[in-house]
């Protein structure tokens, strides 16, 4: 007797779920929700009946609760900020800078095991010229400056119309006992058209949110980007003797 009674209640709740799902919503949402309430929601309720009437009732009740919750004001679907943006560097007085902290254990451990080190800078659109971008890296062991161009393209993506990495080998000695490294990127004097430098989020915990900055010709500002934690896409890579990357660092 009880299961039959519960079974009727489950059916009633199922009908209520459908009403809750489709009332007062945009018609496209109502149609889509309606289909899935019938196909999945009713299917789950019917399927749980295989276990028992009480389980079926509980399933129906849970789905009704969820359908109501779906309608309540709450958090909206988030809109992820774009992980890829660029800043045009059109004048030789403009400068992009990124500071690497080299005091963390993960860096030190990887450096001790590494055979090669390199610096990767992401740029877009202009590096079909051999001397498009000037990159300088400085630590307390010294400074290295190099003009980077098309022949330094690294990986699958660098193309004149698409962002990609350009790789600059660095002597490992430059990082010995260094607590910090500073990389600056500027345009080549002969450059036309302007250089577009890539940027992304700064996500890793412990990284200084102000590690990247931009000199506009008159003042230092934070790089443009959709969040407060942005960085230039400038990274150090450590590789072992087989050439396998053991650390990507920013």
């Amino acid at each position: 007797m009880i299961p039959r009674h519960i079974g009727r209640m489950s059916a009633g709740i199922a009908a209520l779920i459908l009403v809750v799902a489709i009332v007062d919503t945009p018609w496209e949402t109502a149609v889509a929700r309606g289909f899935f309430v019938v196909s999945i929601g009713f299917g789950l309720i019917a399927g749980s009946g295989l276990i028992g009437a009480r389980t079926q009732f509980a399933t129906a009740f849970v789905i009704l609760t969820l359908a109501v919750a779906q309608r309540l004001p709450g958090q909206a679907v988030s809109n992820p900020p774009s992980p890829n943006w660029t800043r045009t560097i059109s004048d030789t007085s403009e400068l992009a800078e990124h500071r690497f902290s080299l005091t963390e254990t993960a860096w030190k451990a990887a450096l001790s095991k590494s055979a090669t080190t390199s610096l990767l800078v992401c740029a877009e659109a202009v590096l079909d010229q051999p001397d498009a971008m000037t990159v300088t890296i400085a630590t307390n062991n010294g400074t290295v400056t190099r003009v980077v161009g098309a022949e330094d393209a690294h990986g699958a993506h660098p193309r004149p119309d698409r962002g990609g990495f350009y790789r600059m080998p660095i002597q490992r000695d430059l990082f010995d006992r260094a607590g910090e490294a500073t990389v600056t990127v500027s345009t080549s004097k002969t450059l036309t058209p302007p250089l577009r430098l890539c940027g992304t989020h700064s996500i890793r915990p412990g990284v200084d949110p102000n590690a990247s900055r931009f000199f506009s010709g008159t003042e230092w500002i934070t790089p443009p980007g959709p969040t407060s934690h942005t960085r230039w896409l400038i990274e150090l890579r450590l590789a072992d003797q087989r050439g396998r990357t053991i650390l990507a660092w920013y």
Partner: protein
Amino acid sequence: MRGASPSKPDTVFRVRKELTSVALAIGISVFLIYALPIADYLADWGALADIATGLTVSLSFLFIAISSGFSSLKISQASPPSTATDANPEKGSPGNVTPLTVLILLAALGLCSLEWYLHRDDRNPFLASSRPEANVDTWLTADGYAMLLDGHIAQNDGTFLLPMLRMFTGDARPAPSEFDARAGHLYFVSFLVPWLGTYWAFAGTNLVFWWLAVVSVWWLGNRNWSEKSIGLIGAVLVATSQGFIFMGTAPQPHAVAFGLFGVLLVAHDLLLNRRLDASFSKAVRFGWATGSSGLIYFVHVPSLIYLWLAMPLRTHWRVMVIGTLTALSILTVWQIIGSYLGLSFSGGNSALATEAVANWVTIFRGGLQNIAAWGHYSRPRGTMLGAFWYPWWILAAIGWWKSPRIARNWAMVVLIAAFAPALLFTTRFQLPRVAFFAYPGMLLLASVGIDEIAKLSSRIVSSFASGTAPVRREAYIATVISILVALATVTNRDLITGSLRFAVNFHYALGTEW
């Protein structure tokens, strides 16, 4: 599968057929290797062994499936389940909830939650395996293929699911994407968004189905094997398995789909296998469940293969046809409704599956050389090992050998249903995540393997010690726990040592390395 005469138990599979299939596969694989054109990779013994293993395993499953089809046709009469045909007729009855059951369910949820929470954010293996340190996509940034979702770092493919999610929350009109066929996943996620936010809504949905997978395997273990320990060990193996850990907090439908496959196997058992009156309505109900699950991601493919292999074809073909048509109807109706709403249902996995089929046509047109070369270029061995690493295969092999015939047959059908689409897809992509659908069969066989090793250990200890029952029991439990901890250490290696090896294997499949 269980519809055979008690006096003369007849099943779809027999050991001799399986062993014959493997022997035939080995012979043909060796022959195929001789057909290969001279190439550099043939100078390496490891690569040669890789091709031979890939071809042998693939052909073995193919021949076993074919032999099952022929056996299936021979079985002409269905009879009630009995002790001869039903592994465990008294157990696995639904609705019988005891305090111990509740405790086990809660413990399962606790273990899943622990793994899920430990692998959140940047420690999610799906995301981590795209970082440059994984040495596959070295052109990606240090954070890998990532996005920021509610301030959490998450796997970036989730970006493409958000427009559909907004449609279900009523915040946006439908917008076509490559993932229109997977809308059911976002229907589930949309329930939790107002409460939990987007990141945790995705992750929370995954956790629910992870737990359902554990419960399903526990139930299936109790159902197909007489020892209670098999289901419990299997449940722990699922909770700590590579596939669920990999997908646990990723904003993707895979974990939900994995969980649903376990639930579908339970539903099949309750609706069709345990009852002889496999009526029209039961076939429709199973087809409905399969079709609805297919609205999440791909589950309908292994589920329908299972439907066609798990019961005698000659006696149950109507059930199979009705179930299949119902499942395909559900999927088709959503395509019609979705198209009306402005969705496109183009691109994505549908297009990739078409490309995989086209590649097979090219391979067969190329003759034996191309078929043999598939064993190298499409990495069938790597795909299977990416889903389940060597220890699981060894334990499953022991389990297969020691399991009762009915249970062994059931597990083999599950393996074929999951591995067949994964192997067929290798001509386009190698996806261990598709092969992982085999987890109910694979991990329950591995449970039997663990159980057998523990029993052996118990016997050895009793021969040295007093031999009393408590001592033997303690030895058994200690061995089981030791093996489970060792296996969990492998699947949690990313947390313990920082190594991404198994995450990379699961993401991209192994190459020719061993």
